[in-house]
């Protein structure tokens, strides 16, 4: 049984990871910063676990020129589900730490990483849908009828420069994920060494 236990410091880091996940609920996870000659002060769209923030109204006002659908938090089922997902993982990671079992840690980590990938894919899918379903009667016809913001990093979209990057909550989320992956990796390495010694 003893072999299946976590190292105390790895167990502590797992607790920390759970705590970080709780924090994610209170901060914006992602942001898309927009600048244009007319917007020297910049515009920002912030994505929280459960809502949109920043200059949503202004961005919606601008998007009508190219026929992009207006953004409304109600249109996204994700904003209802995401907070529960985060709470679920916070609890799962916490339980993992309590259980003090290696196998549980491996399971949780893999599941969590899978969740991250699905979430990013979902984000990309939304960007694709918004950027490609432009109203053909809009005043401005975007070349190729595609106006998709970048998933990560910088992209010039007509007069707007869009910069997409994690916000505070996102960095905390990444830290939680990195912590978990590290915990799992170290636990595997340590366990292998211990096996050799045996």
């Amino acid at each position, binding site marked *: 049984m003893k072999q299946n236990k976590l190292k105390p410091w790895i167990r502590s880091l797992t607790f920390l990871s759970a705590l970080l996940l709780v924090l994610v609920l209170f901060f914006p996870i992602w942001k898309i910063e927009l600048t244009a000659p007319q917007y020297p*002060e910049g515009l920002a769209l912030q994505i929280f676990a459960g809502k949109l923030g920043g200059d949503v*109204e*202004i961005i919606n*006002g601008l998007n009508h*020129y190219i026929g992009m659908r207006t953004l409304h938090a109600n249109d996204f089922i994700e904003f209802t589900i995401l907070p529960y997902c985060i709470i679920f993982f916070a609890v799962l990671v916490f339980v993992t730490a309590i259980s003090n079992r290696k196998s549980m840690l491996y399971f949780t980590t893999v599941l969590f990483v899978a969740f991250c990938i699905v979430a990013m894919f979902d984000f990309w899918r939304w960007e694709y849908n918004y950027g490609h379903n432009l109203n053909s009667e809009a*005043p*401005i016809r975007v070349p190729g009828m595609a106006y998709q913001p970048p998933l990560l990093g910088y992209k010039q979209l007509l007069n707007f420069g869009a910069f997409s990057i994690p916000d505070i909550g996102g960095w905390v989320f990444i830290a939680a994920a990195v912590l978990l992956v590290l915990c799992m990796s170290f636990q595997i390495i340590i366990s292998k060494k211990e096996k050799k010694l045996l």
Partner: protein
Amino acid sequence: MKLSNVPAALALAAALMLCAYSCKPKNTANAVSADAAQKTYVPPGKYDEFYDFVSGGFSGQMSVYGLPSGRLLRVIPVFSVDPQAGYGYSEESKPMLNTSHGFIPWDDLHHIEASQTNGEIDGRWVFGNGNNTPRIARIDLSTYNTAEILELPNSAGNHSSPFATENTEYIVAGTRFSVPPDNADGDVPIDSYKKNFLGTISFVSVDKNSGNMKIAFQLKIPGINLDLSHAGKGPSHGWFFFSCYNTEQAHTLLEVNASQRDKDFIMAINWKKAEEYLQQGKGVKQQVKYAHNVYDEKTQTATSTIETEVTVLDAMALPGIAYMMPCPKSPHGCDVDPTGEYIVGSGKLAALIPVLSFSKMMNAINNKKFDGTYENIPVLKYEDVLYGEVQKPGLGPLHTEFDGKGNAYTSFFISSEIVKWNIKDLKVLDRAPTYYSIGHLSIPGGDTKKPNAKYVIAYNKITKDRYLPTGPELAQSAQLYDISGDKMQLILDFPTIGEPHYAQAIEASLIKDKSKKFYDIMQNENTYAAKGEPNAKVVREGNKVHVYMTAIRSHLAPDNIEGVQVGDEVYFHVTNQEQDWDIPHGFAIKAASTAELLIMPGETRTLKWVPEKVGIYPFYCTDFCSALHQEMSGYIRISPKGSKVPLAFGTGDKAPGGKDTTTISK
């Protein structure tokens, strides 16, 4: 003369001529030093250090400049209609220019005073006076809107105004032109001046929180001309000083007849004493009519109320309110130094500057050392109140500002210069020419307890050759001098609107961050606001047609309107739906006899339009708002009176004749 001496004589003559030329005073170009550009250059995109609120004089408006660049930032409509913003034309703003004489679309704005707390500029409001039809305006420094205009009864020529006490307890207004009181029969011979004409001083209280103005009381004074004034501060807080001319009480050819006496007066008013009398009920309630116009930011609408009563205290009958201090030759400026001890009178025709002492004045009053009375008001002796005179400072002293380091700066109209002198020893320290014939001058905070003496600005009356010529009419000229060193240094010329009189320069850091960017449309309580395009509509009430129109980049809703007839009163209530900085929309319609509307984000503005001819009239957005601004337009169809064309309106599919007919009203 030997022939060989001729070249020598010629050379000598040439040398003499050259010498004579070099003796001629240097022209203005020489007066600018090399580092002037560096001191005034504000790079593109950078901010100025000061806001300068400059009176527009006969334009009736107030201009805002940045210093040290001299760039014009904005013109605030105050007493004159402004077709550009629709001020005085829109239904919301018309009441601001109402008076007891009806709608008055113009005035003459001379002086600007900043609100003060503890004798320092607090950056909340600036005040301006209407000289012609006596009024005081308050401008809000977060919206840069004229927030309030108060008319003054029993007054004419509101010149010694709107000066403030050190906590803005009162803004004062004194009459330049004495007239019979409003409740008396004004149909009197003009040459009965001495018998029938009176002056008044209005003490206008300012509410600490809202800024709302109210005439607390008026002082009845002799029929003389009050010119300028300033409040006491520090030890002299509780007193107000007014320069008086025409103590001869002339009513014709004042140029000569009001310049006869060797000395006129500076009138000292003990307003705390007046307050006591007021509390004791010594005031007489007088039935008068005056307009009080207030702009309500919530409803975005001005209302005009005609007030009917004012309380008057007779300064000639109630002892201890007023005292007369002799001052040479028709004093103009009346300025109190930052310590509150020295009162500088500037006799327009005097060749000296008298400096009066507040403590000496109090001594003389306490010891009852009077030299007779003037119209029942005790007159003090010049020697008893005089601290000293600045000898031969220049010609035609007008106004004095202070640097808070013991020095005074006085403007000289006739000799066209600013003279810096020390208050304690009354010695002239420096003089700088102005271009040309300076009137007012101003130092940031220069009439408060805490001047910020980095610059002095000269506001001139004559421009001549300062700029490229523009025909007989020229812009008026201002000059900026660096006074951070011992010597004044001319660093900039800049043209101004109307005619600049007094001005107030305020440190930008004190006010720039509270400048509003737009109005929250959810807080818009205008009766006719359309919040959101679904609320756009047209409603007929008899011959009145109300168009609740929305404006958002880049369309108006409704943009097609039918069923309106010749002679209908059409009210376009346009609400700007934007909630972003610097996206105003304009609204204009063909053949409007008024002006355009300029509507800030979140605001509602109303233009009344009475069509006189059958036809199709386009309307459009006048402020280039977006890439599709040129598309932001619409049509209204005007049918003959009694036409059967039904009222219909809409935009896009909902326009009359469009696919969607749900909005056609019955």
